[in-house]
């Protein structure tokens, strides 16, 4: 049972939630709420945006300023909100398809712009809500309803994508490490600039049953066994890293944040 201060962030009125029993998204929501509580954020000054998909239903259950938008486009909305009111804490929760397929363009440009938004990407390697279609992070060989003979296209590494596009804080954890999830989300929210926290989770209903990980426990065990801390991974060969999930911080750098730059521009123009 979550702590009382965490429970205060929930819209109990909107329960029951739509997630399947055992879904990993609850672990991520709990980590997010613990982070917001630990950072002493006020719900009325916290915006949580999302697109479309199972993960994107999360804001509805959080009693803050919440914006459930169109598929892949949430970062555009979040950018408008943050730029209009930079004093707000803006978090964008996304799924792997939402973020890297239909929303890929918005994602890389939000990274490039370095606007003060925290993107939490819940990567479960599948389109869950629509019934288990392949996503840009479906591993090669894994089965999906639209890849019945196994996926043949190479997947995105979301953290590499974010780092390459210019995000200034990038980290990855799995739901088997909830304390690490909370730690990175907290650091992401505190970071000035665009932060990306990829959290590897599971969809046992849609991905698991086709890929021999059909119970939540199978998935948690898989994450524990497959996770490799970045420091250790740096010592390993590419062959040794096949099928592994590298966890840790990949980028943490300090460059000017977009809305601060904008305020400087306004001050300059207005003399």
């Amino acid at each position, binding site marked *: 049972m979550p702590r009382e201060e965490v429970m205060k962030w929930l819209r109990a*009125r909107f329960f029951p939630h739509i997630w399947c029993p055992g879904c990993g998204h609850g672990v991520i929501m709990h980590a997010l709420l613990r982070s917001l509580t630990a950072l002493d954020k006020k719900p009325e000054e916290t915006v949580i945006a999302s697109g479309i998909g199972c993960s994107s239903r999360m804001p509805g259950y959080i009693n803050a300023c919440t914006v459930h938008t169109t598929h892949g486009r949430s970062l555009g909305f979040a950018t408008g909100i943050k730029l209009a009111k930079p004093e707000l804490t803006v978090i964008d929760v996304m799924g792997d398809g939402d973020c890297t397929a239909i929303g890929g363009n918005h994602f890389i440009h939000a990274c490039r712009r370095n606007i003060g938004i925290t993107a939490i990407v819940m990567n479960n390697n599948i389109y869950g809500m629509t019934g288990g279609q392949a996503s840009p992070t479906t591993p090669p060989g894994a089965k999906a309803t639209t890849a019945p003979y196994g996926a043949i296209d190479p997947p995105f590494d979301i953290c590499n994508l974010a780092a390459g596009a210019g995000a200034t804080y990038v980290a990855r954890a799995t739901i088997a490490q909830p304390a690490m999830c909370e730690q990175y989300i907290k650091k992401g929210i505190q970071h000035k600039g665009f932060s990306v926290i990829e959290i590897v989770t599971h969809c046992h209903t849609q991905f698991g049953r086709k890929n021999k990980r059909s119970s939540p426990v199978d998935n948690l065990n898989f994450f524990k066994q497959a996770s490799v801390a970045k420091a250790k991974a740096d010592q390993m060969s590419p062959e040794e890293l096949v099928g592994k999930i590298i966890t840790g911080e990949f980028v943490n750098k300090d460059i000017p944040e977009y809305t601060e730059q904008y305020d400087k521009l306004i001050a300059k123009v207005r003399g």
Partner: protein
Amino acid sequence: MPKIAFWQGNMGIAMGAIAAGCRFFGGYPITPSTEIAEAMAEELPRLGGKFIQMEDEIAGIAAAIGASIAGVKSMTATSGPGFSLKQENLGLAYMAEIPLVVVDVMRGGPSTGLPTKISQQDVMQARWGSHGDHGTIAYAPSSVQECYEITVEAFNMAERFRQPVLIMNDEVLGHMREKVIVPEDDSLVLVDRKRPTVSPDEFVPYRADEQDDIPPMAGMGDGYRWHVTGLTHNDWGFPTNNAAEIEKKMLRLMRKIDRFRDDIVKYDTESVKDADVLVLSYGSVARTALSAVRMARKKGIKVGHFRPVTLWPFPDKELEAIASRVKTILVPELNCGQMVLEVERVVGKERVVRQNLVNGELFKPAEILSKIEEVA
């Protein structure tokens, strides 16, 4: 003292937006609307407002909606292909009831079509472009003066009715320069969205007031917590599959515009009292058509002109009152026949004559004059 300016239509729209209190613009470059974005990029920072060039048309409207959710009057502008790309998020603004002004400077289509040439091919897209039912408010200005004034009115309507309002400009008017009398800022009547009067704990975000069917809107960051969604939702803003709640929402979306249709509809007439022939046109075409009507009058032909300024809601009962007295209604349009479908809905097909041009040019007065002479 009012100021005299010499502006393009696109500049008239940008300056009208500024005067209306617009302090956020999200956009993407596209011909022939780009001057609006350029003007906003220059003007907004001077006023402490924000302009952002987004990565694409979709993000441009998304950012504008986001800023409006945060409580700032916002606009985006585009043309042809960009208007198609914006349709999805336009639908979200209808569903979530977010005030916004969207400008489409019409060019020839379909597809990339004619980026630098005029058309009126998007007027039905304005009404039906985004999937699903909703009320539409769309203006077609026909002078630079009107570009300015209509933009102020568009913002007022967006704020009052909590929904996107469209300005259907066209390439010729967008780029044409003419004199504008710019009123002093304090002479303008500006409308702001209705804010909640209850405390945050009592706030039910989509509970509409009975007298106008419009729910008060809190800006995010103003102390209220609420949920925005494109899913069909109940008064709490939460997704619903309950038939009664679905119907309540959908019917209110339509009703909030239908009820106040008379406050929204705008039109203009000339020489209609004794007219046997009525020419109905809008946008840049109305300028040509009015020249033709005046030339025909000099020749003794009893012809008048009707100009819908709001394409949507269409001034149907106003047209009907005048059309009942005329023998023929001529509808020149720069498309293959779009607003004429509304005219036919109102007056029947028998008396309606179409005149269509889709070669990228504007009608010449003589072309409309000879059609008037033919049907008179």
